[in-house]
């Protein structure tokens, strides 16, 4: 087992208006994982993800991020260097007058020297593919894909071990989705970050996530490897999630020796060739 980064113990979360959002959630997130968080709206995905970086404090139970309990006071500045959170709509998180100060905002907040800030900005911009030419541009005038990358760069600049991305591919077409997902995969594979995505796109989950957590009505229904999760369509059915079409094709033909856990068309071709 790899090193644990985040531990969630008996977590309950209730909104101020009394709506219960999470009930008895227990899980841990390790180093260098790629996790997908799936489930219906209202299942608690976003609430859980906001508990995972300390934005929301537990109503009951604990969330411990690299040894720090999020219930403690005055730990915000420490927590943001451990878990980064990319919001769904980049417009909500771009509040500086140009791209450079946008990326520098986090490092400045945590009290780094200007030299360190500069180093962090350049590094993060480079990793996120934000070109120096745009440093003076107002974020409003960038296209949506680039705004999203600036948002991610501004998180990377704090060098968190874990990065949570809320619906990275919503409203994007195939090519844009592949672009952002490949970028997240690179952060995971090459830079060693733990990536947690919240998504409704099962193809994205099948193609990228190693582990999938299924939430339903505020509880964890399944928490296993993506392959294992998609091979249990009965439980998924409860949350109205359907595995990718190719997985269902293979599952319909298990009597011919096809496996239950095919994830992509390529895997299906291979499985077909080997089936007897």
């Amino acid at each position: 087992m790899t090193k644990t980064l985040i531990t969630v113990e008996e977590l309950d979360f209730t909104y101020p208006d009394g709506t219960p959002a999470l009930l008895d959630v227990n899980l841990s997130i390790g180093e260098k994982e790629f996790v997908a968080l799936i489930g219906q709206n209202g299942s608690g995905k976003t609430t859980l993800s906001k508990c995972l970086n300390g934005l929301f404090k537990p109503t009951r139970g604990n969330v411990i991020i690299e040894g720090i309990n999020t219930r403690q006071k005055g730990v915000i500045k420490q927590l943001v260097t451990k878990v980064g959170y990319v919001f769904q709509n980049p417009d909500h998180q771009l509040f500086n007058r140009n791209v450079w100060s946008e990326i520098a905002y986090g490092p400045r907040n945590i009290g780094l020297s200007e030299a360190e800030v500069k180093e962090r900005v350049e590094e993060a911009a480079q990793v996120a593919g934000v070109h120096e030419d745009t440093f003076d541009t107002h974020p409003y005038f960038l296209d949506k894909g680039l705004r999203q990358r600036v948002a991610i760069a501004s998180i990377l600049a704090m060098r968190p071990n874990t990065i949570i991305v809320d619906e990275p591919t919503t409203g994007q077409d195939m090519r844009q989705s592949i672009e952002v997902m490949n970028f997240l995969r690179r952060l995971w594979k090459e830079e060693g970050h733990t990536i947690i995505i919240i998504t409704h796109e099962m193809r994205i989950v099948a193609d990228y996530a190693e582990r999938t957590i299924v939430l339903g009505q505020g509880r964890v229904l399944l928490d296993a490897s993506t392959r294992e999760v998609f091979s249990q369509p009965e439980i998924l059915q409860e949350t109205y999630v359907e595995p990718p079409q190719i997985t269902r094709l293979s599952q319909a033909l298990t009597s011919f020796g096809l496996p239950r856990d095919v994830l992509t068309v390529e895997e299906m071709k291979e499985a077909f060739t080997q089936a007897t």
Partner: protein
Amino acid sequence: MSYAVTITDLEWKYEHRKNFALKKVNLQIEENTFLGIVGANEHGKTSLVSAISGLIPHSYNGIYRGKVEVFGQVVQEMDALELATQVGLVFADPESQFTAMTVEEELVFGLENMGFELHEIRERLEWAAEITMIQDLLDKSPYDISGGQKQRVAIACVLAMNPPIIIMDEPTSMIDPLGKRLIFDILRKLKEAGDHTLIVIEHNVEQLAPLADQMLLVYEGNVDKIAPPREFFTDADYLNARGVVTPESTEFVQWLKAEAHVPPETPLPITLEEGIEITQQALKSRRQM
């Protein structure tokens, strides 16, 4: 045969943009058919449907050439009210299409604009709410409901006005699995009833293809390909190069055909069920060999 929409040599350039969003588009859509539209973002899908709904040129500035007609009337010469009685429009972002304080007000707003009497408003409201399964939401604020619910409300608003043409611009792209499924259920009901011309932009081809009579690929501001779904998805690589995915079972059967695991005359599947059947045949015939 009568056409719901006729587009002749349509060209459109948004103000302050360099390139034309639509370049010499010609298209005819038969009445009461289902047209599925796919294509990469920024290639003109939304511009095309905006031109049919009249948002272009009525709500945007730019250069407009050519002609768009709905049931023989020229879109450019119709006002918002005339257009809304002919063409209903559902947008991608469930957040952005509401103007009222409760779902009920949202639904009746269009009906009041159309000048209906109170009892007619009530009947249409109830009818549209039932089809879209939003009866329990009428008293709520459009803020307080989920994205999928919002999108069903948006569809209900359009249905209540009962225009012969209904356009949906990526209605499921921002909502969760149950929400998506319910919207496709509504589309299926509408298609079965056969009383509307449906034009739907959607990235989710696996759900779209089985419903569509015709599939249309918009690429670089043009109608790149238009065909019934079974023909449309014959070349996954071609579509892929234009940023469009093919349903996974269709793509897989293409491979089966290419590798001669099934007879070359096998039609391409557009549903999972058809895909399963063809694959099963292939597995059986291989066993017998």
